C-alpha cells in the first residue's frame, strides 16, 4: 500500500488534475499529470531532508529559514503526513509544524510552541498563503488537490510536455491559470508559470537542480520568483533520504512535544 514517492514533493510543483484528456505518444494528459504528481510528491514510501531557504525581498534584503522535514505517505498519490522542525530564524527555533494532508477537505495542521509547551491547532483553509514568509505557498509544500484544475496539453518537444492548468473554482486562488513543464524522461515537473486574469505572468517556480537520489529523480534546488515585486526564494535540500521507515507515530502530538531524536538532532 505504501509505495514510492520522492522528495521534491516537499516544495515541488503543484499537483495536476485529471479532467481533460488529450493524447500524446500514447499517454493521455491525465496519465502525464498523474505520473508527474507521483514523481514530484510521492517518491519512496517516506523521506526526509534538511531544508535551507533564502528569501530575498524586492530591496535585496535576505532572510533565512532552516528546517528538517519528514514525510510519510498514507497512500501513494493520496494522503500524506509532514513533520517540520525549525532551526532558523532564531525566534522560531525548536518550533514544530505538522500537517496531515487530505484530499478533498482541509488539511489538519498543528504548531508546537516549545516556550509555552503549547500544541496549537491551526485553521488552514487558505492554501495560497505564504509558507513561513517565503515566496512559496502552502500548496507548493503539500501539493495541490488532483481534481482542482482542468488540464490541457498545449505543446510538447523532445524534452518537455507543456500543460495548461485552469482552476475549476476561482474562489480560493489568486491565479487565472498556470503552465507547467514536465520532463519527458522522468516525468519531473521542472517549471511552472502563473498568470493573472489579465493574462500577465506574475509568478514563476523553477527547478535549478535535479539529481538522482536512491533512484528517484529529485529536485535539490528550486526557486520561486514574484515578478510583481521582484522578490524570490531559493530552497536547497540537503541530506535527502528516501525509504527510511519512519514510524507512523512520529506524526502525533507525542513527537511534537519530544522530537524523534533519530531524525531531528536539535542544535
Amino acid at each position, binding site marked *: 500500500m505504501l509505495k514510492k514517492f520522492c522528495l521534491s514533493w516537499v516544495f515541488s510543483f503543484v499537483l495536476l488534475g485529471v479532467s481533460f484528456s488529450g493524447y500524446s505518444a500514447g499517454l493521455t494528459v491525465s496519465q502525464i499529470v498523474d505520473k508527474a504528481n507521483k514523481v514530484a510528491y510521492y517518491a519512496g514510501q517516506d523521506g526526509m531532508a534538511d531544508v535551507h531557504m533564502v*528569501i530575498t*525581498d524586492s530591496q535585496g*534584503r535576505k*532572510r*533565512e529559514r532552516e528546517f528538517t522535514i519528514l514525510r510519510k505517505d498514507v497512500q501513494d498519490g493520496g494522503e500524506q503526513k509532514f513533520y517540520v522542525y525549525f532551526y*532558523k*530564524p*532564531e*525566534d522560531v*527555533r525548536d518550533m514544530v509544524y505538522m500537517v*496531515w494532508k*487530505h484530499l478533498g*477537505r*482541509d488539511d*489538519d495542521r498543528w504548531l508546537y*510552541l516549545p*516556550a*509555552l*509547551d*503549547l*500544541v496549537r*491547532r*491551526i*485553521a*488552514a*483553509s*487558505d492554501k*495560497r*498563503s*505564504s509558507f*513561513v*514568509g*517565503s515566496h512559496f505557498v502552502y500548496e507548493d509544500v503539500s501539493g495541490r488537490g488532483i481534481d482542482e484544475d482542468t488540464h490541457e496539453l498545449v505543446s510538447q518537444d523532445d524534452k518537455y510536455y507543456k500543460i495548461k492548468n485552469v482552476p475549476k473554482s476561482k474562489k*480560493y486562488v489568486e491565479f487565472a491559470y498556470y503552465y507547467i513543464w514536465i520532463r519527458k524522461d522522468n516525468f519531473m515537473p521542472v517549471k511552472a508559470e502563473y498568470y493573472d486574469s489579465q493574462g500577465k505572468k506574475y509568478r514563476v517556480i523553477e527547478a535549478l537542480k535535479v539529481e538522482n537520489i536512491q533512484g528517484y529523480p529529485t529536485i535539490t534546488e528550486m526557486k520561486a520568483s514574484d515578478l510583481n515585486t521582484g*522578490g524570490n526564494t531559493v530552497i536547497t535540500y540537503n541530506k535527502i533520504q528516501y525509504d527510511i521507515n519512519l514510524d507512523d*507515530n512520529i506524526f*502525533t*502530538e*507525542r513527537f511534537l*512535544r*519530544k522530537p524523534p*531524536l*533519530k531524525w531531528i*538532532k*536539535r*542544535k
Partner: protein
Amino acid sequence: MKKAVFFIVGFCFFPVYVFAFSIGKDLPAIHGFWETDYGYKIGHDTTKRDDYNLMEQRLQLKARYYPKEFLADWNSEFFFRGDWTVDEYFSGKTDFDLREMYFSFTPNSLMDVKLGRQILTWGTGDYLFINDMFPKDYVSFFAGRDDEYLKQPSDAVRFSFFPKFASIDFVIIPVFEPDTLPKGDRLSFFDPFQRGIAGTNSDRDLLERPHQASNNEYALRIYRNFGSNEAALYYFHGFDKNPCSYKDELNRQLYYERVDVYGASIRGPFCSGIGNIEVGYVNSREDPDGKNRLIANSMFKALAGYTKDLGNDLKVGFQYYYEQKLDYDNYRDNLLPTDYFWDEYRHLVTNRITKLFKNQTVLVSLFTFYSPSDKDGYFRPMVSYDVTDQLKLTLGANVPWGEDYITEFGQMKRNKNVYVRIRYSF
C-alpha cells in the same frame, strides 16, 4: 519534614548532576535573545511608580545537550533555559529566573519521562484555562511581556505513556507554585482588606503549604484522536493557584484551597475552521457544600471556541466562556453583611484577530475580552515587525476596563499601559 525538603531539593537539581557529569568536551550551542521593554503607564494608583509599570532588560540563554553515555540509548536530553533580568521598576534589581531545566528520556517505545523544571500546558482555550491548572504569571500578562511569560514553570516529573488505545500524561508536582498575581507593587488590584483597589498599601499575607508528600499535586490527561478530532479527559488534584480563601481574616491571611478538577475537551475541524469545547468541574474539597463563606465554592466551567482562516493571512477566533458557582444559595446565605459577594454566573466572550503583512514580517493583532455579566473587559492590541531575522520590534497596549472595581478586569483598570519591546535573537 527535613527529609522531604532534602528529597525535593535533590530532585530539582538532578538534571544539574546529569549535566555536570555528562557534558564532557563538546559544549552545546547556546541560543537565546536579549531584549528591553518599556511600558508607559496610563492612569494613577498607589503602586510604586506612576509613570511606567515596565522597564527592564532581559537576557535569555538556552542550551541543549545530548549525553553520549548517560542513558544515551534512551534518547536522553538535557535542556536549560534561563533569564537574567535587570528590572528598573525595582530600581535596577537584578534577578535570575530559571525558566526550564529538565532531563528527558524515553525508557521504551511506549513511554517518555521529563524530569525537572518545565513548562506544562494542556487544554484548548486561547488565554482561557479550565483544565490547565499549571501556574501562570498574570503580572507579565497585564504588564505586556511576551506571551511566553504567561506560563510559569513547575518543578515536576512528567510521565507520558503511549499504549494503543490512548496517550496518557501523568504529572507529579512536589513543589507548589502559585500563579503570579498583582500584589500592589507593580500592578494595582482589588484587595478586599483595603475595601478597594490597592497598591503598595496592600498588606495581605499569602500562606503557602509546607513541602510534604500530602501536599503534592497530581495532574492527569488521557487523550486520543478520532480521525481529525482530538479528545481529552483531565483530572487534577492539588490547589487553587489563586489565593481565594481566607485562613485568618483578622490577620489578613489568605491561602490556596484544595481543589480537584475533572474535565474533558474536544477539538477538531468545524465549519471550515477549527472548533473546540472544554468543560471542567472544580470541586472545592474543603468546602464541599459551599457553606463556609471563607472558602471558595465549587464551580462548573465551560468554553467553546472557533477559529477561521479568512485567507490572505487574516485569521479570526471567537470564544465563549461560562462559569457558575455551584452552591450559590449556601454561599449567599452564609455571607456577612460586610462581605463582598460575587455573582452566581460569569459570562465572557473573547475575540482574536490577526493579520500578517509584508511577507509575514509585520503582525497586527487584537485580542479582546468582554464580560457582559461583569460589565468589564480587556483590549490587547499589538503590532510587531521583524526588521531582520534577528531583530524584532513590538508595540502594544494593555487596556483593561470595568464599571466595577471588584471584577476580574475591572480591578485592573488603573494598570493601562502602552509598551514597546526590542528583541535581538541569536
